[in-house]
């Protein structure tokens, strides 16, 4: 039997009737109906934690505001989620983000706060008119909080910026399944730490950078852009591309500083594409949300420095009569290559040549190698290097 939409359960959201699939959270229903609710600790790949309180909504009959990320929709529920419909929500957001700012330097942090993912907290605080209530002292800078001894080259944790939403540790547990970082300490000294405060290099960490990507405050940040003197976010160009490592083919954005390298451009970081808005129809549970299309491993996220490495070959080389390789112009090198291959062909026949192509190169380039081999040099001796 086909279930008709009018038989699906509904909630009233900001005065509109919205149908949903059982199991959907209020946040999911709201976001696909175009009702914006701020979130900090929520990610569709993670089990809802309800930790940051930024997504609270009013549900009729409930005395307290409820976290929409962790509250399942129930048939007939009346929900108010927008400040325009609820002064209570407006007050809540303003004071919550003001409170967060007492523990977070906002935009004033000396290192800047967008070393990894864009800083959601600061943006939300601005949007909801958070006020300056002064700053609280950070009591977490003990061995666990201060990670300055950690010489891992990629990931930095700065307890001054952390709001303890535990998104990073949950990602590390639930998605990466390695639990390299965890909440540690008590009370106002609680912080994010590794077992015994070890360097990430000495833990199970796989350098996936997931903790950096999900952190809403910039507390988990990238070390690299600091060493690269990164220009402000707005001056970076984002180029969507496909990863060049394994056969998964993750998509990501190369963040390019276009002025660097005398205008040739330099990659300063890799970020995940922002998710497309969810479709407006009710989603059956199961495959929704949080695909791996946006998840990435350490090679994809951090492994691009080779492109700018000084060892790169920059000049064509031709072996001279002295047996050494000498710099040559492109025209000389191409002519030498063509003549050399033709020479072998004349002396030993077409099938004395072999063309080794590369699974690292593009489809177009592999196509050209086989065309060169077949159509120009007349042999089917062409194979890519990884025959698997």
């Amino acid at each position, binding site marked *: 039997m086909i279930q008709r939409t009018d038989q699906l359960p509904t909630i009233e959201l900001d005065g509109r009737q919205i149908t949903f699939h059982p199991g959907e959270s209020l946040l999911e229903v709201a976001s696909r109906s175009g009702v914006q609710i701020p979130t900090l600790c929520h990610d569709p790949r993670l089990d809802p934690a309800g930790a940051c309180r930024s997504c609270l909504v009013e549900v009729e009959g409930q005395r307290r505001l409820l976290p929409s990320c962790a509250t399942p929709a129930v048939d007939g529920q009346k929900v108010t989620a927008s400040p325009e419909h609820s002064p209570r929500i407006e007050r809540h957001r303003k004071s919550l983000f003001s409170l967060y700012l007492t523990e977070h330097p906002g935009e004033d942090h000396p290192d800047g706060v967008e070393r990894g993912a864009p800083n959601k907290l600061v943006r939300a605080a601005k949007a909801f008119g958070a006020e300056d209530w002064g700053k609280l002292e950070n009591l977490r800078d003990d061995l666990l909080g201060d990670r300055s001894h950690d010489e891992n080259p990629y990931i930095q944790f700065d307890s001054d910026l952390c709001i303890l939403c535990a998104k990073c540790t949950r990602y590390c547990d639930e998605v990466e399944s390695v639990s390299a970082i965890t909440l540690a300490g008590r009370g106002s000294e609680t912080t994010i730490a590794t077992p015994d405060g070890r360097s990430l290099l000495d833990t199970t960490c796989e350098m996936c950078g997931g903790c950096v990507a999900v952190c809403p405050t910039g507390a988990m940040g990238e070390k690299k852009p600091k060493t690269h003197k990164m220009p402000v976010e707005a001056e970076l160009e984002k180029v969507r591309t496909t990863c060049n490592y394994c056969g998964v083919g993750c998509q990501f954005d190369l963040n390019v500083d276009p002025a660097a390298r005398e205008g040739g451009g330099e990659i300063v970081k890799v970020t995940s594409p922002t998710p497309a808005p969810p479709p407006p129809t009710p989603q059956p549970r199961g495959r929704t949300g949080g695909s791996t299309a946006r998840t990435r491993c350490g090679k994809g996220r951090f492994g691009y420095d080779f492109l700018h490495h000084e060892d790169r070959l920059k000049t064509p080389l031709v072996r001279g009569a002295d047996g050494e390789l000498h710099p040559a112009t492109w025209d000389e090198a191409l002519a030498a290559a063509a003549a050399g291959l033709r*020479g072998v062909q004349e002396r030993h026949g077409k099938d004395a040549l072999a063309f080794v192509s590369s*699974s690292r190169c593009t489809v177009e380039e592999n196509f050209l190698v086989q065309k060169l081999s077949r159509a120009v040099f007349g042999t089917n001796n062409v194979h890519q290097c990884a025959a698997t």
Partner: protein
Amino acid sequence: MTNSIREIRDADFLFVIGSNTTEAHPVIAMEMKRAVRDGATLVVADPRRIWLTEIAEKHLQLNPGTDVWLLNAMAHVIVTEGLVDKAFIETHTEGYEAVAETVKRYSPEEAERVTGIPAEDIRWAARKYATTKKAGIYYTLGITEHSHGTDNVYALANLVLMTGHLGGESMGLNPLRGQNNVQGANDAGATPIYYPGYQRVDDEKVRAKYEALWGVELSPEPGWNLNEMMKKAGDEIRGFFVMGEDIILSEPNVLALEERMNRVEFLVLQEIFPNETMRFADVVLPASGFAEKEGVFVNSERRMQRVRKAIDPPKGARADWQILLDLAAASGASWHHRTPADIFDEFAQHAPNFAGISHARLDAQGEDEDGYTGLQWPCPDPDHPGTRYLHEGRVLRGKGLLTAVEYRPSDELPDEEYGLLLSTGRTLYHYNAATQTRRDPGLDTKQPGAFVQLHPRDAKKRSIRDGDPVTITTRRGSIDAIAHVSRQVKPGCIWMALHFAEARANVLTNDKGDAVTGTAEYKVCAAEVTKASDYTGELHEFRGSHYQAGHAEDAPS
């Protein structure tokens, strides 16, 4: 892959064989972890205690190279216990009878003797696989890098076909491609037997089509595969063109290859970094990395996705496609291509499976509901949405062919002189010849140098302690590395990563190739390990990670 990556999370049973997924395909492993978290049963067949075994219901720790025994014994259980999908076999397959006959001789008890896996575990895995509808098989080089690699794949396909686990979501037979564009290079015709799109070179009609297209006469003779090329180097093969590959580091039995390479008269190398092969090059052409050019990669699930130019190559270097056009022109050809989009069109429009795909269409393609982009082939025309999983409702070649295979021992097994069995593979932090990853500060600190894993028992016998420099020797050569005493490997087995230029594991490996594909036996050869007498390399520490899990401190005292 017959199925898509996104379907993995909905599988109820995952059979992972010969794939260290968390290290070779970390992102696919995340989907597997997610499936397990949601209640799926994971069974891992691997000689090593790889990370995935920690969340697996069962680890079938087989002796390296005995895959056919394991798989045939599983088929034995499925056939003798009547767990086959009769209707599927009748409508969709051929050759079942012969396979059923052959696997009769592969009893789980006998399999236990050969593979080292308890017969009961084999029975359990076979039953569970056969009786779960959404049951997928995932494999990589651990299956194919053997002299009998093709047999291994047939044996797996037999399991899939006899249980009808094909043509639906979250099932099928899924090879996880090792490199970003292995699939694309094959699709593009960089193989000795196929033009683009798997059109055979010895098919008259196909050849006539390409002769008309390219205006030249084409050779009807299939070419040599990579393994044969390397064996014939210096003899039948006197000239090489090599793009983007360090054949000297990556090919097996490399010392013998180097000797032959000296007799090669001419070699052109197109590369981004100096490498070992450059020692034999007569012309070196400086090329480009993935962020410096336009094009398409095809992932493991046949998904064509765009690669885009973000930065310029270093001054003096050129994009690979540009170099190839230049070289063709210098060799007297007049090709009309101007851009990667042009080149792609010629590639796609003459191969029916890709004809609906173009750069323009890929660029216009948004993300689907799971955030995926690009198009999965087959995609025969511009209105076709692409194909998420193959064999829906039928089997591609008409009827799925079951192929009876017999166990053949690996080419070279341990003996008195070389008492250990060496396998090689990849690790998470490096990537093949590692010309890229080793130039990265972080990936390099995590795993700075070559190491060999060996079991505490074997270490003790040889008075080797964890962290000792050791020499690994096979019939083909020897190299030094640091001993990593670990229970991750079985007693009698050792394991090395392929990535390190100063300790090239391929000095050791056997170059015997699979009869059909030519893929070399990287996974099994006989070796011996001794304490290194005059180790000159660095003594590095092996930093944390799940390798520590099997790490044994109790080596000899």
